[in-house]
């Protein structure tokens, strides 16, 4: 007899019963949708974006309770607050640095308010021009016909130099009435000599024949430019000598004194009744306000640093105490400060460059407004969410606050680099105070020299100007001697105190010609220059961002400065020229232009308009290049914010209008061109070529 354990029957029954159960259940599930819905998963019916009804498995998530939500949101907030704080600190540093530069620029401006300094500058310019002319006349390549003019040119140079030195002396010391009179007499002498030289060159032109005639004509043009300048200078100085402000007592240099406010007060008293001084007096007011705000002049305050321009910057302790919403507001506020300081810096720079009163420059300068991010005050202040939805909203607000802060910090950094010429993210401790001021002053001098060389006026077609040394000097001033090019990979730093390859026995030719047909057929498009490349020869810049048209200034070319000259922002939108038909200002945006053609034609070209083109050029190492800019009609070219070429006058497009030999930084170099169109068509072209190729 089988025991209970050996019998297989119960097992079989059990199998059968469970099989039946499972089978019946599966069958019911298969046949009955409702049961499926309620047993395995909940299926919900939703309407998707296209308006169709879709069935979807509903996934139940456990709803966290209020405590948990709060806990999560607190953690999240703490994390994001740290990031916001970091950005706020970065921005604070940037603002401080920007304002230091602005302050230095303004101080330079005040120095210039000593009118004798301006006179000295213009006298220097005349001396320099006469020296250039003398060198050209003494050159062996100069035509024979100009030989008799040499003694006159020599004496002009000598007198101009003496005059410049004398004025320089006056600018530094006490000026009496007789001194002023003496200066006028000397200026008159310069004009007489310049006149004489011009006359004799005119005679020489009559005598010269053939090719020489053209060369003499060029020299004559230069000489008459010089005469014009000398006359202008004479007019200024004689008017100035009669005015009371010409007579000044010796002014102590501000940096030599312990307390900067004292000599400025003296100056103020001295010049209160002087028209030129009005802008300056207002400056002092600003300064005094700033000082009143900051009892500690070094700005090292425990709770809140005072920036050089008198803005109160939050200290670390203040930042710690702020709530997230307030922190975000603080970042937004600082972004506004960056804009203000940047505009002020640009105004000071413009006032310096164009010798304008600061007030006027402030009115003229373009004030860019950076985006201050979305308004998140409400969303951020609700930092006590009680359910999932509220938490999600709060979290999104935190995320966008951090993103916006990052964007603002980056914009601030870019503004700083636009102002100082340093590359963004460069961490070297820049010079401060007096050193910075001196560097800025030196930079503006170099830039003034460069714009003299850049101008194509009075220089014949195909003239070659060498700007390498000046550019090297400028880069060195910007980067304190040791920096790598902007945006360049680390580890490839290059000392910018550039040891030039300009061998004296192998000078650049004074002029060159281009075979237009040959270049048109052979030039290759590109923006990356490589010395080792097998393809040598002319490269034309083929890719540009172009914006325009603006109304062309009527009086003087390049006179009105439009926003791109202050700051290139490819996302910006501006109001341009008034449309002839709709009578409304056109909306301008940067547009991408890439062409196979050397001559670039701005989209929507109209007559009597101004366009800008922006691009970048890359080179691996510091490269000497010769640039040929051609335009119909006028063009001005900046490379790395330095004026390199300027051609005014309604000229037609000619490939070899003028050559400039320049120095490119390793890495990315910015190229900005301003194109002015008179009547009819408008083109421009920028060609580049390693200098060696020009010689061959």
């Amino acid at each position, binding site marked *: 007899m089988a*025991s209970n*354990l*050996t019998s297989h029957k119960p097992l079989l029954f059990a199998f059968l019963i469970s099989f039946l159960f499972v089978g019946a259940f599966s069958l019911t599930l298969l046949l009955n949708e409702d049961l499926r819905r309620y047993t395995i998963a909940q299926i919900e019916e939703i309407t998707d974006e296209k308006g169709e009804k879709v069935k979807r498995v509903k996934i139940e998530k456990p709803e966290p309770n209020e405590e948990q939500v709060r806990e999560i949101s607190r953690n999240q907030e703490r994390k994001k607050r740290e990031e916001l704080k970091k950005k706020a600190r970065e921005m604070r540093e940037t603002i401080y640095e920007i304002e230091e530069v602005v302050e230095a620029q303004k101080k330079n401006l005040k120095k210039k308010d000593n009118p004798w300094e301006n006179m000295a500058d213009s006298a220097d310019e005349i001396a320099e021009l006469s020296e250039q002319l003398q060198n050209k006349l003494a050159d062996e390549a100069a035509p024979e016909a100009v030989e008799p003019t040499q003694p006159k040119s020599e004496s002009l140079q000598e007198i101009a130099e003496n005059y410049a030195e004398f004025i320089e002396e006056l600018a530094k010391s006490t000026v009496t009435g007789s001194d002023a009179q003496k200066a006028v007499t000397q200026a008159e002498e310069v004009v007489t000599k310049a006149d004489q030289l011009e006359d004799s060159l005119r005679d020489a032109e009559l005598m010269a024949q053939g090719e020489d005639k053209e060369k003499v004509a060029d020299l004559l043009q230069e000489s008459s430019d010089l005469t014009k300048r000398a006359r202008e200078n004479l007019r200024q100085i004689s008017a100035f000598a009669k005015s009371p402000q010409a007579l000044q007592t010796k002014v102590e240099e501000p940096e030599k004194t312990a307390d900067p406010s004292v000599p400025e007060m003296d100056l103020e008293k001295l010049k209160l009744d002087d028209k030129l001084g009005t802008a300056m007096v207002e400056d002092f007011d600003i300064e005094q306000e700033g000082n009143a705000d900051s009892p500690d002049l070094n700005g090292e305050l425990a709770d809140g640093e005072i920036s050089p321009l008198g803005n109160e910057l939050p200290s670390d302790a203040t930042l710690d105490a702020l709530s997230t919403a307030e922190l975000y507001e603080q970042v937004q506020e600082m972004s506004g400060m960056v804009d203000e300081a940047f505009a002020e810096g640009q105004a000071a720079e413009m006032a310096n460059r164009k010798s304008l009163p600061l007030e006027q420059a402030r009115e003229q300068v373009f004030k860019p407004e950076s985006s201050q991010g979305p308004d998140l005050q409400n969303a951020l202040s609700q930092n006590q969410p009680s359910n999932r939805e509220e938490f999600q909203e709060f979290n999104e607000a935190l995320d966008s606050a951090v993103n916006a802060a990052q*964007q603002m910090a*980056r914009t601030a950094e*870019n503004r700083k680099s636009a102002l100082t010429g340093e590359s963004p993210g460069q961490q070297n401790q820049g010079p401060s105070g007096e050193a910075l001021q001196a560097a800025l002053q030196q930079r503006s001098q170099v830039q003034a020299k460069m714009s003299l060389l850049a101008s194509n006026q009075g220089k014949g077609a195909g003239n070659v100007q060498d700007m390498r040394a000046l550019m090297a000097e400028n880069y060195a001033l910007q980067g304190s001697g040791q920096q790598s090019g902007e*945006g*360049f*990979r*680390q580890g490839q730093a290059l000392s910018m105190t550039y040891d030039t390859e300009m061998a004296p026995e192998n000078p650049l030719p004074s002029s060159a010609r281009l075979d237009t047909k040959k270049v048109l057929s052979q030039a290759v498009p590109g*923006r*990356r220059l490589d010395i080792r490349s097998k393809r040598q020869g002319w490269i034309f810049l083929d*890719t540009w961002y172009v914006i325009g048209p603006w109304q062309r200034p009527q009086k003087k070319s390049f006179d009105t400065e439009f926003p791109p000259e202050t700051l290139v*922002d*490819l*996302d*910006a939108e501006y109001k341009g020229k008034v449309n002839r038909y709709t009578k409304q200002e056109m909306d301008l945006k*940067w547009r*991408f232009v*890439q062409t196979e053609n050397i001559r670039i034609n701005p989209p929507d070209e109209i007559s009597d308009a101004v366009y800008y083109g922006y691009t*970048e050029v*890359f080179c691996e190492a510091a490269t000497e290049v010769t640039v040929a800019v051609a335009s119909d009609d006028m063009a001005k070219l900046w490379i790395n914010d330095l004026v390199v070429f300027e051609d005014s006058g309604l000229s037609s497009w000619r490939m070899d209008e003028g050559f400039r030999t320049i120095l490119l930084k390793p890495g*990315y170099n910015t190229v900005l061109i301003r194109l002015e169109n008179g009547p009819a068509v408008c083109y421009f072209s920028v060609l580049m070529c390693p200098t060696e190729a020009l010689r061959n």
Partner: protein
Amino acid sequence: MPRNIYDEDNDASLSMSPLIDCVFLLLIFFLVTTMLKKDLHEVDHLNLPISRSSLEVPPDDTVLAIAIDADAVVYLEGEETSIGALIEELKIIEQNDPERRIRLDTDESTPFYRLVEVLDALSFRNLRNVGVRTYHEKYD
């Protein structure tokens, strides 16, 4: 009469080891066959062009997604951005990781000029590891 082997074994029990084996096998099966979809930073409203020649590339966390939609709006990692900001970002990428993979998602009707503009910006910044994403029935 055969000896009943169960007679002496009064406390019979199920062995757990095969059960655990089975459970592990199942677990491994699901682990291997489950595909988790990565966050591709996609832009929802893009209608990718269809291509039969496209290849499947394994997803990569470091890939940078740039998308351009039919209205020529540019997206970076799924977030709307502007050309100026994109160029800024590319500058930073070039400095930190010039070999980074870049995926370009475009709509069927993206304006071609915008595609050229973005490609040119990438090429000028020496970012050459660029792929274009298309739709392939087999993979998507």
